[in-house]
């Protein structure tokens, strides 16, 4: 049976990991490749890199990251951040990334999802959705790293991206992100119940019960985690042992 996945997320700015992470066994805690290789050894199922470099150099930093990671990391990895063109996607995948994630560009031009999935296959096209609660059963999609509201209903958008050929949805709750009080069960459940592609829940992980809850009660296929592993509150192995003891199938 397919396992539920634990995916550490690394935010990268100009080739360096943001939010300094201090691990004794890592020579350079700011090096995204070294950190990703560390998480591979620790038992992570995949890695997500989110490039937040705010300049025209981003295109190059993203491609460099893809290629350097390929030399040292032997689990699947996704790269996202400012990707908006087919040629750029091609370049990143060629260097060794398994998936790319698109967000703002997909809303601005939904045909990008369709074109990209036709050329490269659905399995490597992840659509990231940042959503914020508005009112009863309505979560609004935000763009540009949560700065621009769109008026679009996140659940409708999730359905639409599946139809367009997305292979996976990376769903971030802006309400929960950074709070450490648990993933957004309602939002995640609303999305997993209308799509038939894997959904990665993101935002709000503070303890291991949160991982269990969003998998068990909201049907998430994978969980994105950052600070609880970056700051060594837990080890990945520990999280997996816990999920296993809760009857969830994981890779150990």
């Amino acid at each position, binding site marked *: 049976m397919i*396992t539920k996945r634990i995916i550490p997320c690394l935010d990268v700015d100009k080739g360096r990991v943001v939010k300094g992470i201090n691990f004794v066994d890592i020579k350079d805690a700011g090096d995204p490749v070294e950190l990703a290789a560390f998480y591979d050894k620790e038992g992570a199922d995949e890695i997500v890199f989110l490039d937040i470099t705010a300049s025209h150099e981003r295109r190059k930093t993203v491609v460099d990251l893809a290629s350097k990671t390929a030399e040292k990391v032997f689990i699947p990895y996704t790269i996202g951040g400012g990707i908006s063109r087919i040629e750029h996607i091609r370049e990143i995948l060629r260097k060794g990334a398994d998936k790319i994630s698109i967000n703002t560009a997909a809303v601005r031009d939904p045909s990008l999802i369709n074109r990209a999935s036709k050329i490269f296959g659905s399995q490597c096209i992840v659509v990231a959705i940042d959503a914020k609660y508005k009112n009863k059963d309505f979560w609004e999609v935000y763009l540009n790293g949560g700065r621009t509201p769109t008026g679009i209903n996140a659940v409708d958008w999730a359905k639409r991206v599946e139809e367009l050929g997305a292979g996976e949805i990376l769903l971030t709750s802006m309400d929960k992100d950074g709070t450490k009080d648990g993933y957004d069960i309602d939002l995640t459940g609303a999305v997993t119940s209308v799509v038939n592609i894997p959904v990665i829940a993101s935002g709000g992980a503070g303890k291991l019960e949160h991982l269990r809850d969003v998998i068990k009660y909201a049907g998430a296929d994978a969980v994105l985690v950052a600070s609880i592993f970056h700051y060594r509150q837990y080890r990945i192995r520990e999280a997996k042992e816990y999920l296993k003891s809760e009857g969830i199938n994981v890779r150990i």
Partner: protein
Amino acid sequence: MYIAVINYNMGNISSVKNAFKRIGANVRVTSNARVISNAKALVLPGVGAYKDAYKNLKKLNLIKVLKENIRKKIFLGICLGMQLLFEYSLENGKNKGLGILKGSVEKIPQFVKVPHMGWNQLKILKRNSKILSGIKEGDNFYFVHSYYIIPGSKYVVSSTTDYGIEIAASIEHDNIYGFQFHPEKSSTGGLRLLENFWNIVKEKG
């Protein structure tokens, strides 16, 4: 002595190359017929559509070279590269494969999520398999595919995985090996398999 990793523009060659390098194997990424003929072993990776894959091999004049060499050398097909060994695929109509092994490639039925993507466990059928040496029943490997093989002979299947339906995870026939999952993306377990392959190559070389 080297392994030729065949480059036919069907995705993610660099991951396969890097993984072999990591375990200390000599690899050459190539689409040159002579480099292929002189290799001790061949690896055919591949991500993408069956029809395009065959078309690309044809365009590079590699069909004949592969058909001549696969049986003579030690061969490993990964994902699409393994599927190409069979007679045909039903991906977007009926499309011809290399026909080295009997059988076909068909769509995973829609009652499960397609593609089959993620880490799944092996059920080992060939316990004395050299390439699976060191791998335990239930170890996880990374799969990404929407089509799966229906081999003409069930005896080529060395391990399976359970995805609501039973899927052949690896095959073995004389010197021909194939993985449906991606060893180059399957962390230490995957690297172990590539190391086993390299050991087989060295032993016979």
